């Protein structure tokens, strides 16, 4: 029987096509209106290179940043060559790795086919909905969106592709030395890090070069493109990885008593593929969009506050960060005889080296560049408002060091961001590492049963959320303090620069993060691909040594992966908070073109209206707070649905005794296909929710409700994301602690309780939790991009009926989309029925040594793995 979701695409496409057509119809009408009055001055491309406001040094610096961005990409290419040139191991190892690589490529190709049309539609919409008169801005917004989407896609795809190349090399290197294996694995991760740095910086720099201080629309488009792709890659990757993991475990470990990474389990390759698409591609795209959105936020707010220096400075800081990452990542290496402790020390040392280099660099840059004088104020009059009495000399000593015209506040808020990144690492590590009390207490709680483990895990997660939020709040307060007395846009700029500082070491962060799945996959390749007897014959002791090295690297990778999650979530809040100011500013002045003319009084008047005493704001707050919960529920249910199909397929294949005997390989490709198809299907609902919810609230309830919506969504999203990630991480490591030989070890009652906690926490920490980060930013971006139209066509605006009908259409379409997504989430998927033989969980086995095979109905479909018969 063909899996019934073959006819699903028809059902899935229908609402999308309808939505797209409705949007297009509504927006084409608005697109033919006359331009609004009060248009800005004529636009000149590449203004920084012929506007006398920019000095020769600034133009050279801009070109230097571009060169650094390209340099980062070239460094990535160098590392690619190093990794691909490394030894590829034996034929059996290559076979396993090839199956994982093919499955990963099949997934990303399927995803590209799925969301590609949506990207084209949105590009067209951005083109059509621009209400200004400058064609350059219209094309810039849409083009930058497309470029942002493509860059985000490239980072995810290329990073994952190299990870599937690097994992084999790491497994091969482990047969020779620890140092070689660690270095290769870390450099594989560094490729993704450098792609993120390079492409993110390249995009922001090029946009500024072309548009100068008119880059607002293009920057938003760039940020939106990267964020949207990141959302889909995170959601799809998260569903894939957990469905494959849960499916493999449910049938393998629990039902059939087969251990992990056993080649007889048809889901084992999909499980390894999931590590790549979730932890490599999804995470890489996620951090890329954090990286670019923080640049976007800083540049937008820099334009509105300090003028062009406020825009250039974050780009230069990021350039310094790229250089720091290049130097520091190259220092991470281990000696042949090293173990996991020294390896972690080397990784952390690399991080500290990068931090020091970056901090010294951008503070020195600040001392040299952040000088404000009358000549600068003449061309950037808005900057004067940032200083007490309009005089830079009136700044306190810690901000100006007594030097004429110096304002170190942007550099200091960057420094706060670096501290925040380190602090979030520490907090996350404290609550999720086996060396600390929370996880140790959780392991001990397992000795009294499953329920106490779950209860305790909730407590650990809640507590970690509070501490994380306090750290972020203190950092924001410190940043605000730096700009105390300055107008709100300067304060917001300070918060944005904190985000810049936080992600200065993105190269190191992603290196540490991607290293995790690379090491995990390498361990799986070693498990399934090594020939122990042959290795021992060639060199006695080599097999056990190699397995120990891979196991150690896997442990290191798990640690580094967990530590970096806090940064991704924290950056979402920082970027969202700083962009919130833009949101208020646009409401205050009516359009993004007039932000620079906004007065403090206008801003404060609008900000003062955002009070929970306003029913619209309060309702928006409530709805915004609910959306992350609905989104998470959708994803978790999606994992369950996808896992159902995987379990059914694995059970079907396990009926073949030849697979148990090991004389016939399972059809890995079929399970990979199922994971790929269901992950793509399940993307649609959460994606629609992210796009439609803010539009629905904005057009239905007005801009103030939308502001409340954003605030509620940011706050609750942050809390939920941190809780899910940290609780899941704590449960996972409590299980590992017991498996390492505590409280009875594997098989004990404590271990069983720990497995329950780990199973509960897995979809939280690997699917729903990480996906909230891009959700926050997508909804932020959609709100900002649509705000101009919301102001004109929302249903609460005092206009005639005939002028509101575009808003009515948008509301109806978005409402239909949200309702559809909600209902889809609660449904059982087509084909979710059990066969007779599926009823038993422990004994649905056929007797005898039948050589008959049970060919999958419908034949093999696309994306079959190399190992499939």
């Amino acid at each position, binding site marked *: 029987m063909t899996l019934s979701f073959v006819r699903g695409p028809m059902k899935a496409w229908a609402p999308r096509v309808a939505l797209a057509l409705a949007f297009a119809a509504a927006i084409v009408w608005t697109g033919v209106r006359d331009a609004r009055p009060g248009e800005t001055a004529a636009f000149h491309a590449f203004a920084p290179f012929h506007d006398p406001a920019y000095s020769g040094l600034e133009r050279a610096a801009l070109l230097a940043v571009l060169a650094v961005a390209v340099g980062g990409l070239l460094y990535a290419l160098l590392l690619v060559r190093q990794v691909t040139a490394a030894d590829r191991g034996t034929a059996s190892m290559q076979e396993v790795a090839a199956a994982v690589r093919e499955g990963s490529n099949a997934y990303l190709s399927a995803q590209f086919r799925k969301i590609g049309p949506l990207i084209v539609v949105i590009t067209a919409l951005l083109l059509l909905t621009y209400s200004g008169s400058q064609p350059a801005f219209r094309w810039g917004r849409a083009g930058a969106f497309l470029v942002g989407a493509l860059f985000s896609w490239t980072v995810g795809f290329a990073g994952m592709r190299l990870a599937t190349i690097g994992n084999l090399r790491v497994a091969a290197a482990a047969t020779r030395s620890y140092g070689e294996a660690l270095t290769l694995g870390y450099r594989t991760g560094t490729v993704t890090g450098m792609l993120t740095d390079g492409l993110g910086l390249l995009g922001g720099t090029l946009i500024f070069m072309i548009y100068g201080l008119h880059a607002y629309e293009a920057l938003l488009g760039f940020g939106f493109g990267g964020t949207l792709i990141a959302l889909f890659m995170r959601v799809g990757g998260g569903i894939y990885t957990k469905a494959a993991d849960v499916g493999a475990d449910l049938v393998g470990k629990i039902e059939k008593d087969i*251990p992990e990474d056993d080649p007889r389990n048809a889901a084992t390759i999909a499980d390894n593929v999931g590590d790549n698409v979730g932890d490599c591609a999804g995470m890489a795209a996620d951090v890329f969009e954090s990286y670019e959105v923080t640049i976007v936020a800083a540049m937008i707010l820099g334009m509105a506050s300090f003028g062009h220096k406020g825009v250039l400075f974050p780009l230069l800081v990021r350039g310094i960060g790229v250089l720091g990452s290049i130097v520091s990542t190259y220092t991470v290496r281990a000696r042949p005889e090293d173990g996991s402790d020294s390896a972690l020390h080397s990784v952390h040392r690399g991080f500290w080296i990068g931090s020091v280099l970056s901090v010294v660099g951008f503070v020195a840059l600040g001392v040299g560049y952040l000088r404000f004088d009358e000549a600068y104020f003449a061309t950037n009059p808005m900057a004067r408002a940032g200083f007490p009495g309009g005089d830079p000399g009136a700044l306190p000593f810690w901000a100006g060091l007594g030097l004429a015209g110096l304002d170190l506040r942007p550099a200091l808020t960057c420094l706060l961001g670096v501290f925040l990144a380190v602090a979030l690492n520490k907090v996350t590590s404290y609550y999720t590492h086996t060396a600390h009390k929370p996880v140790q207490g959780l392991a001990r709680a397992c000795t009294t049963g499953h329920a106490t483990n779950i209860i305790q895990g909730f407590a650990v997660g809640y507590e970690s959320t509070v501490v994380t939020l306090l750290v972020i709040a203190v950092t924001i307060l410190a940043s605000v303090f730096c700009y105390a007395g300055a107008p709100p846009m300067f304060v917001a700029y300070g918060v944005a620069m904190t985000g810049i500082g936080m992600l200065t070491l993105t190269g190191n962060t992603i290196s540490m993060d991607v290293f995790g799945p690379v090491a995990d996959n390498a361990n799986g390749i070693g498990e399934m691909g090594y020939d122990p*007897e042959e290795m021992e014959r060639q060199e006695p002791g080599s097999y056990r040594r190699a397995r120990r090295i891979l196991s150690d690297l896997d442990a290191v990778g798990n640690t580094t992966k967990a530590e970096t999650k806090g940064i991704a979530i924290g950056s979402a809040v920082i970027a969202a908070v700083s962009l919130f100011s833009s949101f208020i500013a646009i409401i205050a002045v009516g359009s993004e073109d007039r932000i620079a003319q906004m007065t403090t009084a206008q801003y404060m008047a609008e900000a003062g209206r955002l009070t929970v005493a306003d029913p619209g704001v309060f309702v928006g707050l409530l709805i915004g707070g609910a959306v992350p919960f609905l989104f998470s529920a959708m994803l978790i249910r999606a994992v369950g649905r996808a896992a159902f199909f995987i379990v059914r397929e694995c059970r079907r294949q396990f009926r073949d*005794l030849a697979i148990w005997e090991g004389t016939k390989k399972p059809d890995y490709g079929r399970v990979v296909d199922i994971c790929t198809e269901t992950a793509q299907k399940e993307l649609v609902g959460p994606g629609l929710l992210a796009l439609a919810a803010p539009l629905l609230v904005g057009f239905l309830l007005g801009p103030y409700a939308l502001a409340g919506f954003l605030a509620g969504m940011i706050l609750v999203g942050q809390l939920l994301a941190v809780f899910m990630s940290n609780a899941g991480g704590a449960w996972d490591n409590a299980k590992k602690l017991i498996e390492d030989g505590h409280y009875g070890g594997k*098989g*004990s009652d404590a271990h069983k309780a720990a497995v329950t906690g780990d199973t509960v926490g897995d979809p939280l920490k690997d699917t729903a939790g990480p996906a909230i980060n891009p959700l926050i930013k997508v909804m932020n971006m959609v709100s900002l991009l649509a705000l101009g139209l919301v102001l004109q066509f929302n249903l609460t605006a005092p206009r005639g009926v005939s002028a509101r009908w575009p808003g009515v259409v948008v509301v109806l379409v978005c409402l239909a989309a949200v309702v559809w997504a909600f209902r889809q989430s609660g449904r059982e998927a087509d084909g979710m029925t059990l066969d007779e033989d599926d009823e038993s969980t422990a004994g649905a086995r*056929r007797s*005898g040594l039948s050589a008959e095979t049970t060919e999958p109905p419908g034949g093999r479909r696309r994306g079959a793995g190399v190992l499939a018969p």
Partner: protein
Amino acid sequence: MRIHLYAVVSGFEALIASQLEPEAFGLHMAVGTRKLTSGIISFLEIEPSFRHERFPLLDRLEEVCVLHPDGRPRASKYVSVYRVLEFLPLDAFRDLYLATPDGRVLRVAPSEGRPLDVAGPSLFQELCPLTPLVVSALGPAEYARHMTDESNPISVPRLFFADLRLERDAEGRLAGDLSYPSPAHLLECLGQVESGRGKLTKTVARNPSTQGFFRSVRRGFFLGDAGGVKWYPFPSREQLEVHHAWWWHSASAH
């Protein structure tokens, strides 16, 4: 087709004829049979020429243990499911096979030389005909003799059991990776047999779970009666990881 004889000695007790080779038989018993089986399966290959009046079906094996109509070999033909070990002499037993729940099978040959004769204290998991977890002041060979001595009020004609790990940390607690039930009670029982007050054995648990069993095996398996003891030495961790990697991968996970 050749007919094999197997004595299943863990989980349940049976004498089974089969046309399958030992590894295939172990796979069948773990995952192939419709008789739902959980936990580990241990069985010993019996000398094919063995005959005993207690098992009359053995004289008709050629008639009853035949291929299926579709040509498949006969996986199992039960000869007896009661008091099997009692009537099998020690010299009828050949190799031991240990099957994991997912069908991986490890062959363990008996030791050629003298049976292992070391002193206690020891921890034994009796597997057939009874299944208690026992601490003893005796070593494995001595324990086998003690438990099969008819003058002992508690004795059995023949006994199959495993010698388990009993490592303790510096503070006297059981090592952290040993998943025995009620560690505190086990240590208390151990204290009693170590006290020197003449108590040679103490039952810790009547029929404990086999979770983590293979990770707990120390010196191996013993089959003894009043006339002697056969020792099936368990491979070292290194040998298991290198030469029996897939079996150990499964066994260590359960």
